[in-house]
């Protein structure tokens, strides 16, 4: 029976509603949920492919301990015993959880409670540290609370949209579509122009759509916003009354801004942007009270991320442009439930329910609420420090849930090394293979999207239900269930009585309301007694959700009341800081920026399973300005080897270049998605040294300085085969799945597979195969080999001095079939269909002209004599022995035309 179920998308922070069509235990289609306020029926390409990513083959389906498949009770016991043992010997701070914005709020809540209240440590951090911890810290400093004040409608209501550090067109496509649609609608209605300014070192797809693009020098955002503050103040646009009544710190903030960005000329110079462009931006900001500044990773992933966000907030506070329709600073998260994680206290420097370590009353309150026997008293280690502690042996057991730090962390190779020597690595994941899972002693199969059931919060504070659509595969269990079972096994059962997600959500809502009295922004008091039925039917709603605001709260701070002790927002003087690493162009140093591609998500564990998402950018290329490429001497399809600087290089990466004038000179861009599962030397995280914001602890993932050198592989090629290889033999490679066939793209510094070794290797890998076809261009060092048995192909290998350009999908399609058609077989080593129509049985042997070809000529080209055919097709012009056949074809074909 088919059912429609409303749920939410598991990808970005937009948090779109998804309407899933489910047939028995199969999600057969998805579409945007028209009722969900975030997307109103829209979905991006990633969300539209959700049902294509539910590949049972890719799932982790059974718990295992040190390689042995075990049942759940054994696995839970092993985890509990392991943790207890370490705690007993080394204290609670010797264990850590590293969790994820992929978890649902309920999962998150239980993990946080177990660690902070019962194990007695705060060493629980989340991959949100890499995503928006700077935004959190800036909001807490400025507002006294981690509050996103805005509503998505503000993106449409704003007359000036400033996007900084955001390629929303690719990373938050549905919001970007909403912005663009609002601009178009305003134009069509003859309303005053809605303008968009994009601030980004790269001319991204987002920047292409903007009215003004400021391609600033990386890391100079705070100069630009300090300058804006000065400009607005000089022109009397700052709101003196608002400043006086609702803020503090303006004078010092302005003074510092004047010192650091006192003139447009100074700003232009610091940002490396023409003066007139700066002036244009400032003028528009001056004349447009309805201004939203939308910011994301380009601001957050920085050693001065908190200050950059603060410089934005400073401008909004000084002009009173906050908490109003169409006016706000607007931090957008990258993950589907980064906000939910913040609500439960998923970061090491958060407590729970927007309560804080620096307030002893908060600690006491949470302790009482939880009846916590081992309440932690202070903030724990942030992600980078946490993995350092693992590497140094201070943390001896770590439980990683639903995230892939071996790929995503800076110094990613160091993270791997740390895990490799850790006594106990527990990993919960829904996927069978990830770089992190490969390091685990205990593997716990978790449920994934379509099975998980709970709530998520999007970037506008909207809590939505993510619903279970199908039963869990194999023995997969919900993360909250796994953590709860471990809590029970550790002896904390009474405090973890959860039977279903609503039990957890109710407690979470109760904690948010507990002794709140409007002192904390995060308040779900209306849900404190929520029933299962109400929970199941819950509509998407923005917190606070209270008796006073039973339909939720669209915007905060419209009343000028903030959650600081004084009730006033804090402006904070910002001295702009450059990124820590400086490039020396003389030594081929480049600034490396990183980010998402349009159709991929994080480390591709999910999006990598949907082939159509692979087509936009099937290969991680390093974007380089053509002039830099020329200076380096790298050809348009050539390779660069990127390496970290310093005495102890932490990593290297090899990638082909893509020449792009959207890059500034001296800067490179690499996508973040490739991992050790699908590449060698494709993990950009291995290239990024650890440099963190001193306040938020967020790493500077968008500004690494690397050395670029031309890499000249002697051999490049491709391999199609049916299963991934245990040990791909090349220096560097990428792997993906096309049409069910595994495709490798590889390069080798020295020519590897010459005759005998190639066949030996093929025979070792596929012993039942034999050489079926081979194409050699010895002069050019090019070889293509088809290996298999009969009509079943096991492997197709191409290599040569340059990367071949076959029709990869066509070849994969041919290979997937158990029997290959004759023309396909002939074309396989050509790498594309010849597209030649079957010419039919040969009539003229001398000139190889087939019957169908001749009939076509007779019937459709007016060639109705032997001589005419001979002139056009050459048939019958040599030995002439086919002339009677030609005459027969002419008479029969002409008749058939007549009878038509």
């Amino acid at each position, binding site marked *: 029976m088919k059912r429609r179920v409303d749920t939410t998308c598991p990808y970005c922070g937009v948090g779109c509603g998804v309407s899933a069509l489910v047939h028995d235990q199969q999600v057969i289609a998805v579409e945007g949920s028209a009722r969900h306020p975030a997307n109103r029926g829209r979905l991006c390409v990633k969300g539209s492919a959700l049902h294509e990513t539910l590949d049972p083959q890719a799932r982790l389906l059974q718990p295992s301990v040190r390689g042995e498949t075990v049942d759940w009770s054994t696995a839970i016991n092993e985890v509990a015993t392991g943790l207890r043992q370490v705690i007993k010997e080394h204290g609670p701070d010797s264990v850590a959880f590293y969790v994820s914005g992929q978890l649902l709020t309920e999962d998150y809540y239980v993990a946080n409670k177990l660690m902070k209240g019962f194990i007695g440590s705060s060493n629980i951090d989340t991959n949100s540290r890499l995503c928006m911890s700077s935004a959190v810290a800036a909001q807490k400093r400025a507002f006294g609370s981690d509050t996103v004040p805005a509503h998505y409608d503000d993106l449409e209501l704003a007359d000036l949209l400033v996007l900084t550090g955001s390629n929303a067109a690719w990373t938050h496509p549905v919001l970007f579509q909403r912005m663009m649609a609002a601009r178009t609608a305003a134009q069509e209605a003859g309303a005053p122009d809605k303008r968009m300014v994009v601030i980004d070192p790269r001319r991204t797809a987002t920047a292409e759509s903007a009215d003004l693009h400021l391609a600033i020098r990386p890391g100079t955002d705070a100069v630009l916003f300090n300058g804006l503050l000065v400009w607005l103040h000089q022109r009397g646009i700052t709101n003196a009354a608002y400043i006086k009544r609702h803020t503090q710190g303006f004078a010092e903030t302005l003074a510092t801004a004047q010192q650091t960005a006192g003139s447009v000329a100074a700003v232009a110079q610091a940002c490396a942007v023409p003066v007139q462009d700066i002036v244009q931006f400032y003028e528009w900001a001056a004349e447009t009270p309805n201004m939203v500044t939308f910011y994301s990773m380009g601001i957050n992933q920085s050693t001065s991320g908190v200050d950059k966000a603060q410089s934005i907030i400073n401008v909004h506070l000084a002009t009173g442009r906050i908490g109003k329709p169409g006016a706000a600073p607007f931090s957008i998260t990258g993950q589907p439930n980064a906000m939910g994680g913040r609500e439960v206290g998923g970061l090491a420097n958060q407590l729970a329910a927007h309560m804080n370590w620096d307030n002893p009353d908060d600690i006491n309150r949470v302790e009482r609420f939880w009846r916590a026997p081992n309440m932690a008293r202070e903030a724990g280690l942030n992600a980078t420090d946490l993995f350092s502690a693992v590497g140094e042996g201070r943390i001896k057991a770590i439980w990683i849930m639903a995230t892939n730090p071996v790929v995503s962390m800076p110094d990613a190779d160091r993270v791997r090394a740390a895990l490799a020597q850790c006594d106990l690595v527990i990993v919960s994941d829904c996927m069978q293979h990830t770089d992190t899972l490969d390091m685990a002693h205990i593997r716990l199969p978790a449920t994934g999207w379509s099975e998980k059931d709970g709530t998520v919060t999007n970037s506008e504070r909207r809590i939505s239900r993510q619903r279970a659509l199908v039963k869990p595969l194999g023995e997969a269990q919900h993360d909250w269930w796994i953590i709860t079972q471990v809590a029970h096994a550790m002896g904390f059962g009474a405090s973890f009585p959860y039977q279903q997600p609503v039990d957890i959500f109710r407690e979470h809502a109760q904690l948010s309301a507990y002794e709140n009295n409007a002192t904390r922004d995060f308040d779900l008091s209306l849900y404190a007694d929520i029933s299962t039925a109400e929970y199941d039917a819950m509509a998407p709603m923005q917190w606070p959700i209270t008796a006073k605001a039973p339909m939720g709260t669209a915007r905060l701070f419209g009343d000028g009341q903030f959650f600081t002790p004084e009730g006033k927002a804090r402006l904070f003087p910002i001295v702009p800081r450059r990124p820590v690493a400086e490039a020396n162009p003389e030594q081929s140093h480049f600034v490396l920026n990183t980010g998402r591609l349009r159709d991929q998500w994080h480390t591709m564990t999910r999006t990598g399973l949907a082939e159509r998402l692979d087509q936009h950018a099937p290969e991680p290329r390093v974007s380089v300005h053509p002039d830099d490429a020329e200076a380096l001497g790298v050809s348009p399809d050539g390779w660069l080897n990127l390496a970290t600087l310093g005495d102890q290089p932490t990593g290297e990466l090899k990638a082909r270049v893509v020449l792009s004038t959207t890059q500034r000179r001296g800067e490179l861009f690499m996508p973040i998605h490739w991992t050790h599962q699908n590449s060698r030397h494709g993990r950009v995280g291995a290239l990024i040294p650890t440099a963190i914001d001193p306040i938020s602890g967020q790493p500077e993932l968008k500004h690494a300085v690397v050395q670029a050198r031309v890499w000249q592989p002697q051999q490049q090629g491709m391999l199609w085969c049916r299963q991934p290889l245990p040990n791909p033999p090349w220096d560097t490679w990428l792997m993906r799945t096309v049409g069910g066939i595994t495709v490798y793209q590889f390069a080798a510094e020295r020519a590897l597979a010459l005759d005998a070794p190639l066949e030996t290797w093929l025979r070792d890998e596929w012993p039942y195969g034999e050489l*079926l076809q081979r194409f050699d261009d010895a002069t050019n060092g090019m070889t293509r080999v088809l290996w298999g048995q009969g009509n079943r192909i096991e492997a197709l290998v191409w290599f040569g001095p340059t990367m071949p350009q076959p029709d990869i999908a066509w070849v994969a399609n041919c290979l997937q079939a158990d029997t290959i058609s004759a023309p396909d077989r002939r074309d396989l080593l050509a790498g594309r*269909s*010849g*597209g*030649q129509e079957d010419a039919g049985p040969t009539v003229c042997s001398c000139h190889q002209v087939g019957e169908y070809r001749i009939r076509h000529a007779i019937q459709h080209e007016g060639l109705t004599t032997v001589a005419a055919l001979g002139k056009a097709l*050459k048939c019958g012009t040599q030995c*002439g*022995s086919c002339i009677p056949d030609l005459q027969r074809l002419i008479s029969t074909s002409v008749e058939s035309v007549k009878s038509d």
Partner: protein
Amino acid sequence: MVKPNETVVQDMSPHEGNVRDDTISPHEHWVIVGHGMAAQRLLEELHDPLTHRKRQDVSITIISGEPVGGYNRIGLSDVLAGKRTLAELTPQQIHSQHLPNCQWLQGWVMAIDRTAQTVRLSDGGLLPYDRLILSTGSSALLPELPGINGQGIQAFRTAADTEGLMALPANASVIVVGGGLLGIEAAVGLAGRGVNVALVHRGAWLMNRQLDALSGDWLAEALTSRGIRVYLNSTVAEIARDEREDMQGVILQTGEQLDAAHAVFAMGVKPNVDLAQRAGVAVADGIEVDDQMITSDPAIYALGECVSHRGVQFGLVGPLYEQAAVLARVLVANRDHIACDARYEGTVVATHLKVSGVPVYSAGDIDPAQESLVWQDLPKRHYKRLFLKEGRLVGVVLYGDISDGGFYHDLIQQQVDIRAWREHLIFGAAHCTGNVERNNKPQAISQKPYSAAA
């Protein structure tokens, strides 16, 4: 068979008469010596220009040594293999039905008197000519071996040779000497008739002028599977005969004797140049002709297998036909005393055969020392090798799938620069001529050599 000393006159013209007096009239008489495929094609090529204006100012006499002229000699293999009959090879009598003033004689030309512009026929008659066309063809080479002269030894050149082979009993044993195109066709044709065949070839692989080692080996395997015993690197040292001079077999240079009562020699041909040589016409290996097929005597032309053009002789039909086309235009223009720009500038020779269901194609220069592209499908026994020189295709060997033979032949002939699509070349016309729409790939050959057929 007609003996050389007889001449049979077959009157096919309303304007009969052996000897004409041309001195008082602008009428010209052309004599064509030999009626093989080249001469036949020449007649066909002359048909249009000579009939177009209903001109009556040329008469032609064609003299054929064989009782049937102009038949399709290439088809003899099919006849031997039982796929066609001799009658099917005989041309439509275009010269008799449509060409004005054409007569056909069976007989032999014994001598040419270039001063008198006459030829002497085997019956003693004299035939004057205004223009003489020599298309005397070639003869099979017979090596000088002990026992070579005697019964049991024959060539495979003519309809008569073919009839002789077809008359052999099914259980006969035949040695075919020569593993070239003709020898293989003879061997396969005979084997197909149930004859016990051994094929003796002195090369390291079959068709070693047209194939490379791998394709030659594959071909040998294919013949073996047809019951033909193939002896490579083997030469015949002697014909074994008994005391009655009956043939017993051949003795190889290794001393091994292969028993058989018949041997077919297909070791190549030599141009028939004696007639020309005796008349003092310049002869190298063949009768020397310029690009208009004119010999050292401006009244004498030559074409076909008897000529040497730019130092090259020809054994395949393609170049002969091109020569015929040029010569027809030259003859008519010369007759009319007008300039003619027709030139024969040589031909890239292509060979193809289909034996045992194995099509083989070869063209151009296949020197193994050259750069080459190689493709093979081992289970299907398909093979392609393309030989390149300075960015151009110069030679090709195809085995199993020869459907792109014509495409490659044109590329060789037209010397097309193939560098831009070298990677696709071996996959054939469909991958090179714009049939495949790909933005990043070359769309078409500029000269579109295959456009007519693709």
